[in-house]
């Protein structure tokens, strides 16, 4: 009889391992959300020259625990016109895919729920399932703000999924694998993927901001326009599951993908000697990106819906496609070295960053001219 790790039968070990992974993921999601809400409030406060939470516990550390307790003990409010089962099912539909995607995140060399050879595809797939829950939530709330928020969100998520996946493709082309473990292993040493493929990293990060409903792409829940978008009718722990847990969980997953694909995952000084140190490096890197996301939220204003869509379809997607073509051609032309790919990718990045202001200025000019032409006859008729 074959013996697996810890002397357990491998057939039992396989499901057991999955159960442990899901349990750990649940633990990490719950506590990660608490920590990230605290971080978010503190960082926003520092940037806006405020104090942030400081009453509960030392430095206000227990504030989010108190908030969570409040949410859990809240009365379960449901508007009369909401759509029964859908209303209850929507938070679960948003939460479950996010939780399931934690299974393939490689925390360290051997600390991973399941080493799928299609891990990257798995993460993309689960990311796309969130849309369904949001649309259902918007529909079931039976409220026009919620419906508009849900439809906006569906449009946004489906659109930004495309540049996101296209950015992942270029990494898969260079690394030659979709397994999260293999991708991390390929980046041993200081040459991490971001030095080779900075452009796809930028595309992915922008698209990921939109995919997780973070500012400047938080239109689905724009409180000044839509009350709270698809979350309007939700309260108590349903709201908590949808917004706090799922949103912050998704942010963590996205940052973990960025870390694994472009920043070497668990790799770092001293990992060879002590493999467990990988968990520390991984967590540190992930939280660095989470803090960047919070910084962006405190800095940038929200986009308008037409700007959001045109930026995706006219800006990100063509550039991402160009990026794939360039990377694929160079990878075929120079199979031994990655220098040409790196040069091309940095050039593309420079063109992209430098080109945006010019394109934007031309667009604004044509928009203004059109508005003037449209109002001109009306002015003449009035005078």
């Amino acid at each position, binding site marked *: 009889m074959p013996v697996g790790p810890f002397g357990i039968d491998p*057939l039992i070990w396989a499901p057991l391992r999955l159960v442990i992974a899901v349990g750990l993921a649940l633990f990490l999601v719950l506590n990660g959300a608490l920590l990230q809400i605290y971080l978010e409030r503190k960082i926003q406060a520092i940037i806006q020259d405020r104090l942030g939470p400081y009453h509960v516990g030392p430095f206000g550390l227990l504030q989010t625990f108190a908030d969570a307790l409040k949410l859990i003990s809240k009365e379960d409010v449901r508007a009369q016109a909401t*759509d029964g*089962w*859908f209303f209850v*099912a929507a938070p679960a539909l948003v939460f479950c895919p996010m939780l399931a995607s934690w299974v393939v995140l490689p925390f360290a060399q051997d600390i991973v729920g399941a080493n*799928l*050879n*299609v891990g990257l*595809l*798995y993460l*993309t*797939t689960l990311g*796309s*399932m969130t*849309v*369904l829950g949001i*649309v*259902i939530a918007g*529909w079931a709330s039976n409220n026009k703000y919620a*419906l508009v928020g849900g*439809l906006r969100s*569906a449009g946004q998520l*489906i659109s930004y*999924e495309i540049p996101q996946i296209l950015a992942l493709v270029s990494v898969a082309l260079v690394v030659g694998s*979709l397994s999260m473990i293999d991708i991390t292993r390929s980046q041993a040493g200081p040459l991490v993927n971001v030095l080779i493929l900075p452009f796809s990293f930028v595309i992915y990060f922008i698209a990921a901001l939109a995919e997780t409903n973070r500012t400047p792409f938080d239109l689905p829940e724009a409180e000044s326009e839509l009350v709270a978008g698809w979350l309007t009718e939700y309260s108590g722990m349903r709201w908590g599951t949808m917004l706090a847990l799922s949103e912050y969980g998704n942010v963590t997953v996205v940052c973990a993908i960025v870390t694994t694909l472009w920043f070497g995952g668990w790799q770092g000084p001293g990992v060879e000697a002590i493999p467990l140190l990988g968990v520390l490096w991984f967590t540190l890197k992930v939280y660095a990106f989470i803090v960047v996301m919070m910084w962006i939220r405190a800095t940038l204003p929200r986009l308008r819906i037409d700007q959001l869509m045109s930026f995706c379809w006219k800006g990100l997607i063509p550039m991402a496609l160009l990026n794939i073509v360039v990377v694929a051609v160079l990878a075929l032309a120079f199979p031994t070295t990655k220098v040409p790919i790196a040069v091309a990718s940095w050039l593309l990045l420079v063109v992209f960053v430098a080109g945006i202001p010019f394109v934007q200025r031309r667009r604004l000019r044509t928009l203004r001219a*059109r508005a003037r*032409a*449209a109002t001109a006859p009306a002015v003449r008729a009035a005078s």
Partner: protein
Amino acid sequence: MTFDFVEPVIFALLSIGVIAGGVAVVMLSRITAAALLMAFTFLCMAGMFVLLGAETIALFQVLIYVGAITVLILYGVMFTKFGDRPRALFFQRQTPLAAVFVAAVAIPVAIIGLSFTSATSRPGGGDLVALATSVFTDFAFPFEIASVLLLAAMVGAIVLTKREDPEEAALRRRR
């Protein structure tokens, strides 16, 4: 102790899910519920693909059917909102005829299907590399055709549904 019974049990659960979901799509009068149950059917189907050892196909199935097609259909449901239909208008007039036709074809097919008694093989290691190799070598030309088809469908859908902006139309007329 062996775990041979796991696969048939999972298969039975998934097939119950697939068939119940399919029946619900046809029988339910609430279209949003039908759309959600369709997504459930697709998920169970993805489970079957995993059971067959085709994980890549299973993931594409979820990505395309649940993530894109169900959401599109929900969009369609929301844009074509209408009141509840009376029960008499639920089915078409040709229902009995259709039932006879479907039964007449389905029964022989089921009998033929049951005659395949050999076990399915499950090569290890997944199907990703084999699938990719096939798509980009032997099936490269169909692959390109498919991409053209997708592009045509995208343009067609936009042309069909785009409402002309009155402001823009006025501007064009003036020119």
